[in-house]
Structures are given as C-alpha cells and as structure tokens.
C-alpha cells in the first residue's frame, strides 16, 4: 500500500488503525441468555448491506430463521452538523441543513427557516409561503418515490424502482429550475425564498401534475394487488398505535398504525390551512399499511401542489425587513443603507434576541423539529435537530420480534429511514 506523497510502500500492518473490539460481555444485557450459551446465533447485518438503505448496522440474534432480538447500531454517518452549525452565522448555517436528510432538502430548509423566523419574529410574504408549500410537497413526492422504488426493490420488485426514479428525475429538474441545484437547494431561506421562480416554473409543475396521477396508478397496478408483494408485506412488522406513540414514531409509520397525526393538519404552518387535503390513515400497522398510506400521500400532495399553484399570489418573495434579510441586488447599487445592511449581514450576521424556540414541520418521514437557542449573538448557541428517522428506527426492535430474516428487509424498507437523518 502506497499512501499519497510517499514513495516507499508501508507494511500493511502499519497502515491499519488499531481495532477496538467489543466482546459479547459488553452486549450481554441486550441479547437473551441463549445467545451467551451459543444456542442462538448472533449475526451481523450491515453497515455495507444494500438493503439497509445506507449505513445501518443491525446485530441480530437468530434462532434458525427467526429473529429473537434485533439491535440497531447507528452513527456511521454522523457528521456533527449540530456542532458545526454553532460555529456559523444564522444564514451560513443553513447550507448544512440540506445535508441532514438528503431526500428532503427543501423540507429541512423550511424547518430551519421557520425556526429562525420564529426566533427573530419575521413575517413571510404570501407568495413565498405558496412557493414553500409547492416545493415541499414536490419534495415529499420525490422522497416517497425513492422510498417506493427501494422498498419494492427490497422485496424483489425490480421494475418499480426504474419507474420511480424516472419520475423523481422530473421533480429534481423542477428543483434545478428554481434553485440551480438538483438536491442541495438551500432555496428556502429565513424570511422567504432565495428568489422568485423563473417563468417556466408554472408550466413545468403543471406538466408534472398532469402526468403524475397516471403514474401513481401504474405503481399501484404493479404492486397493490400483486400476490407476491402481498405475501411479503401483509401482516409483517406490525406495531400498535400506542406502541408507536410510546417510541415517538411519527409520519406515515404512525398514521399506518391508526393515529391521525399530521403536523400539516394539526398545527398548520406555511399556510397549509388554506388547502384541502386528506390525511390518509390505516389501522393495520403492518408493512402493507405503510405502503398504502405513502402511496395515498403522494396523491394528496399532488392535490396540495395544484391548489397552491392556482392560488399563488403575485408579490415579493422575501421579507423586506433588512435588519435580518439581505436587500436585493438592485437596491445595493443605489441605496447607501442597503449597502450597509448587505455588508453587515454577510460579514457579521444579525443578532437574534436571547431565547429559545422549537419549530417543527411534517417531513416525508415524520416530525422534523428544530430547537434553536440564541444567546443574543449572530450565531446559534445551540441547534438541535429532532429528526424523525431517529425515533422511527427505535421502533425496529419492536416490529421485528419473531419475524423471519427475509422479512427484516421488508420492515427496514417500510420504516423509510434516511441515515443522514438518523445520525445527523
């Protein structure tokens, strides 16, 4: 092995880091006594396993094909975003929010922007609110498409994956149209959005709205009555509504267990109260119910996008409180005050009042909350991300008691974890 910048190869042992070993004694309290005596088998699954949707590691205790205990091990994608955000000003910290849940980038921007707006008490113009809703719902569809594709792939439905990614591409094209970026958009900013959408935006969204309902029908035709799919999902990975609440599960997983809890309906934000939509729920709480809820959610999201697009008013897309929001480029050239604001905001940032707020949005995976504390300075004193996948994943040991190893893959898929969201 030759490292970069070295001419002589080093012996292999020297290049290897010290390996930290964990013995069975450290994990005794997690597995049954039969595992210690060797009667049941301990099996490591992941982190490099295609069905774990990233870098999730599971320690499995198996009795033949039956899962006795399932112990998730997370942290392989920990990036220290909470710590990093403490060192950046409020505007600059936002760039990191995209990297948390990389399938719901617009939603992360919204959660963070709403927390900052709540902290400094900023108003957001109506057009910006409509744009936020449209993009978040499109992002929700994109995220559910990835989930549908990969979860179906896990139970060996290969073709769905290809179709889902085809449609997701259209949504990413729309995001690229408005922000210049396909995934890491940073489009929603505190006080509004980055800038107004181009004229092609409306046509692109309308085309998508026209095409998509038929495509959702196609996915359902492929899966909903497919006996192979039903065999793999029906009655698998059950969790009751009370258990789901107790482990803090939110989002489609909770709604598939019969609890009607959607922040868009229960605690409306960004003008969701203006739109008519249903919150799909199922009582069964199994993998199939979670599939049905998510597919139905895609249809509801399309309805919201259509209404928001119809109702979208004209006007500014950014708050004009220039103590917090940078003035537009056109003003900087002619107004001394605008120039001063611009300079102050991009060098020093704005000072938020001392206090703490919690603000949450409904991400495709559940309640995405931001806890923001300010000590009166230009940088957040503490940012905590209450990410939905972290709590949803805790339901995994409950769902997997006594299932077959093969069903485990279907269950991981149905929780819809994003490891960037779990590990932060």
């Amino acid at each position, binding site marked *: 092995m030759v490292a970069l910048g070295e001419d002589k190869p080093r012996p292999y042992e020297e290049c290897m880091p010290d390996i930290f070993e964990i013995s069975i004694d450290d994990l005794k309290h997690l597995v049954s006594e039969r595992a210690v005596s060797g009667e049941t088998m301990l099996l490591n699954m992941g982190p490099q396993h295609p069905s774990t949707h990233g870098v999730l590691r599971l320690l499995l205790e198996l009795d033949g094909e039956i899962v006795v205990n399932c112990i998730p091990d997370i*942290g392989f994608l920990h990036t220290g975003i909470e710590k990093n955000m403490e060192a950046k000003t409020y505007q600059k910290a936002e760039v990191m929010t995209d990297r948390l849940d990389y399938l719901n980038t617009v939603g992360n921007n919204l959660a963070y922007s709403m927390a900052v707006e709540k902290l400094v008490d900023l108003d957001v113009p109506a057009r910006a609110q409509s744009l936020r809703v449209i993009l978040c719902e499109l992002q929700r569809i994109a995220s559910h498409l990835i989930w549908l594709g990969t979860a179906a792939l896990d139970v060996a439905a290969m073709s769905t994956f290809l179709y889902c990614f085809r449609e997701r591409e259209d949504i990413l094209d729309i995001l690229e149209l408005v922000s210049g970026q396909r995934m890491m958009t940073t489009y929603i900013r505190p006080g509004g959005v980055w800038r107004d959408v181009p004229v092609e935006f409306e046509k692109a969204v309308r085309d998508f709205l026209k095409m998509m309902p038929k495509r959702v029908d196609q996915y359902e035709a492929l899966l909903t009555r497919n006996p192979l799919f039903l065999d793999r999902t029906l009655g698998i990975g059950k969790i009751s509504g009370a258990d789901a609440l107790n482990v*803090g599960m939110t989002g489609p997983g909770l709604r598939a267990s019969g609890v009607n809890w959607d922040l868009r309906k229960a605690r409306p934000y960004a003008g969701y109260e203006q739109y008519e939509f249903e919150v799909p729920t199922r009582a069964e709480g199994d993998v199939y119910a979670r599939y049905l809820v998510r597919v139905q959610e895609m249809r509801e999201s399309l309805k919201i996008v259509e209404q928001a697009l119809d109702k979208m008013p004209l006007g500014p897309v950014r708050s004009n409180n220039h103590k917090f929001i940078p003035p537009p480029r056109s003003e900087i050239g002619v107004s001394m005050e605008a120039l001063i604001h611009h300079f102050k905001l991009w060098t020093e940032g704005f000072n938020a009042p001392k206090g703490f707020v919690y603000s949450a949005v409904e991400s495709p995976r559940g309640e995405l909350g931001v806890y923001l504390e300010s000590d009166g300075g230009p940088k957040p004193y503490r940012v905590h991300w209450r990410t939905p996948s972290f709590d949803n994943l805790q339901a995994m040991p409950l769902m997997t008691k006594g299932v077959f190893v093969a069903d485990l893959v279907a269950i991981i898929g149905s929780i819809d974890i994003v490891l960037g969201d779990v590990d932060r």
Partner: protein
Amino acid sequence: MDKKLQPIVEKLEKTFGVTAAEYRGDVTLVIAREKIVAACEQVKGLGFEMMSAMSAVDYWPEENPRFHVLYLFTSTSKNLRLGFRVPVPGVNPTIPTVSHVYQNANWRERELWDMFGIKAEGHPDLRRILMPADWEGHPLRKDYPLGYEEPQFTFNFQEIDLRKPYAKE
C-alpha cells in the same frame, strides 16, 4: 397560552412548585432533576403520549447549573405541546432515566451521554450511540473544540502530514 394547556400547566405548577415561562408560544417549565421521573409520569397521565424531543444545552463556563436538559412532550389527542428544562450541575452530571416512561428516551439518553457526558442513572443500555465506542470526550460540550482539517496539496503535503495527528503512524 392555549386554553386546553392552561389547566394542565396550572396543575403541574402546583405539584412541583414552579412557574411556567412562555416564549413565542412555547410553554416551558423548569423542573428539579429529582422530580423529573414523577413529572414525566404525570404528563404522560395527562395525555401527552409522545416524547417528541430530548436534548441538552451546555452553558459552560457556568458551573451550577452547567447544563439544561430539555424535554418536549406532545399530545396527539389534544394537540398540545409542553416543554421541560432540567438544570444539571457540571460536576458529575447525571439525570434519572425516564426510558421506562417513554421508550424513545432510551436512545435519546444514550445520545445525551455520548454528546454531553450527562449520565442517565438506571438506564438499561448506556453506551455511546453516534460516536465510535472508543471515542474520548463529549463533542457537543462547549469546551470541546470544533476541529478542522488542513487540505493537503502536492507542494505542502509532507509539511501538513507531519502535523496531522492521524496521518502519522
């Protein structure tokens, strides 16, 4: 304050001898750490089925209290939210575990131990959760420096390589 939340907060205020603070619509109560298990049991009985979030803030170099542990409860049936803050001193910081009351406190308290070094007493499985098992220090504490990496280019590769703690064998 929400009309439905008012009687609940008044009841808690009376039981635990505290006053609620409201900031931008978020209601928070400061609870002593000896009483947090009783308080959690009580809010669960009052209809807060879910513990939405749990984390901490480090006020270093303040020592007593150095940390505030945050709890956030949600009632899905009544559509309410309520927060707790628990002051914890900097020397030997511990809190009693609430993982038997709310199950997701299990991982959240592990995260608290991992990131802040606040031990949850009576926790069934207190290991590090996000950082590697052999990591030293607790990254989200304020006296833990935010590190950075020097980018190496061809012309200064050797020079930086000598300084890097992990690049040397």
